[in-house]
């Protein structure tokens, strides 16, 4: 059987396939590269980067839920300079698109991180305005159209690479925020980040997560994510990258049918570190099984 060409372009960046490892679930790729060749991914979105190194939140940082997990890592990362000097040279040589996920406590921090990345071999900058696990910044920038537009606009001016805004699902009208980000200059939209949630140990009456609340991800959030990708892709003309509970190739196809030009796989990497290549192979088999000749024939093809 002829293999369908799954290469695609995301805001001008060529991806060998529409699968991107989601930020925060893949580190900087080194750990997974011990298990399999990470160049099988179309792209890798690295662990959220801040201006200075962050130690993150105290443990526990994870709780298992029905069909998913709650996490509250709190953007632990070595900082933008350590990323550029110690991690990027290795990662950039891997032959997969590199997406730098950046997070700031203030608008100035976001702008400064984007500026430091301008000479780095990063293909796309993903603006994380949706992290629910940090006290400052994060999701607070992503919950109203005006604040999202302000931060996107400011970073757009400082950023040499295509800019993708990663949106939070913890809002009433995702489409209006996506539109505001697009109008402010976002070249793509990625969604969804995690849904804020919590877990309680009834015996000790204490929250399971030290941070009390955390972000819910995994199959539990997939219906919400599909709905938001659907609403967003109808509201904007820039490409939408969909994520939220993708565990199989067919899950990925559902996101594309809903309107996603590409997808990110996150929690599946944590639940099963070997799932990346499996999901990509399953997707290719799905295309072959249903005689789908191009990604274009799938994206946004929802029959209503």
């Amino acid at each position, binding site marked *: 059987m002829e293999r369908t060409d799954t290469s695609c372009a995301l805001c001008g960046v060529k991806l060998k396939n529409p699968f991107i490892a989601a930020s925060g*679930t893949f580190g900087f790729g080194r750990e997974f590269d011990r298990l399999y060749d990470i160049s099988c991914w179309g792209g890798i979105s690295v662990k959220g980067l801040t201006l200075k190194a962050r130690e993150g939140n105290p443990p526990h940082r994870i709780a*298992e839920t029905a069909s998913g997990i709650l996490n509250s890592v709190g953007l632990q990362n070595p900082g933008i300079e350590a990323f550029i000097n110690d991690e990027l040279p290795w990662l950039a040589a891997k032959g997969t698109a590199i997406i730098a996920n950046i997070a700031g406590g203030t608008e100035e921090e976001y702008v400064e991180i984007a500026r430091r990345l301008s000479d780095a071999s990063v293909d796309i900058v993903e603006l994380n305005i949706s992290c629910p696990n940090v006290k400052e910044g994060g999701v607070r920038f992503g919950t109203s159209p005006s604040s999202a537009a302000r931060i996107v606009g400011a970073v757009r001016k400082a950023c040499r690479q295509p800019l993708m805004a990663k949106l939070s699902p913890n809002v009433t009208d995702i489409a209006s925020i996506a539109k505001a980000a697009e109008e402010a200059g976002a070249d793509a939209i990625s969604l969804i980040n995690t849904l804020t949630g919590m877990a309680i140990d009834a015996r000790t009456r204490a929250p399971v997560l030290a941070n009390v609340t955390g972000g819910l991800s995994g199959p539990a959030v997939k219906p919400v994510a599909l709905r938001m990708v659907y609403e967003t892709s109808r509201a904007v003309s820039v490409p939408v990258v969909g994520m939220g509970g993708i565990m199989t190739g067919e899950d990925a196809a559902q996101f594309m049918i809903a309107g996603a030009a590409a997808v990110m796989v996150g929690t599946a990497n*944590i639940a099963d*570190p070997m799932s990346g290549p499996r999901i990509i192979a399953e997707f290719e088999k799905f295309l072959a099984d249903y005689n789908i000749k191009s990604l274009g024939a799938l994206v946004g093809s929802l029959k209503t």
Partner: protein
Amino acid sequence: MQEDDGIKKTKPLDVRAAIHRTAWIARDIREITLEFCEDPRALLGEPAKPAEFFSPVSPLPGQFVHIAIPGVFLRRPISIAGHDGRLLRLIVRRAGRGTDMLCSLPAGSELRALLPLGNPFPLDEIKSISDCGGDVWIVSGGIGLAPLLFLSGWAKESGIRLDSFAGFMDREKIFGVSELEACGVCGLSIGGFVTDLITESLKKRKPGLMIACGPAPMLAALQKICGEHRIAAYASFEERMGCGIGACLVCNCGFHENGGFRYRRACIDGPVFSLSEASF
């Protein structure tokens, strides 16, 4: 750099395994042995050999396996309690939904297992202290004995004497003591604090090294004792885990480092750490 130290280790393999034997050995404590269903070398494109002639992995005492249990979302990290070249031995405490389901699986059930993961106990250091005539003590609390049984088996094979101090909550929870007695003198603490035994014994003898695994309060008490007596100690730590390979950063434990504080990942920087640096 920590990151690099973690990455240089043996490549872990994700293999299909089947439960060979499973039985309760104490209250809520189950011994499960796994056999490997296929030659994972074949997965790596190398020539396959019949699985019964070899084990695809060579785990060391202190390392763990990340087990996918059918119907449970996240894998569960379980310390390896033994490995005879073919069968992998686990000792599991039923403590929640995941371990409950693992303990309820009958012999023959298939699982996926990612192993070996994490750093082993300091085997070279144990060997050299023993060679120089020094004592090495192993200290356990409850299910913390599981990885130490792998260590005691290794010590017996290597001709190294290990004296042990094992704490159990009550008599129904006792397991593994005969194995400890096979490689040295074993002191038991039942329903008390195993560290009280250590304090008593230190009045008579002082070991060159202690190796521990158990609940955090036990490790904290042991850290204090070892600090006061200037005894080097390593312990195996645990924290709720995600990927098991070092990428997701959820299983961090706190440590003192260069006068500051730093998180280290239990899965890949540990689970065995120098006890003196731990921040409880």
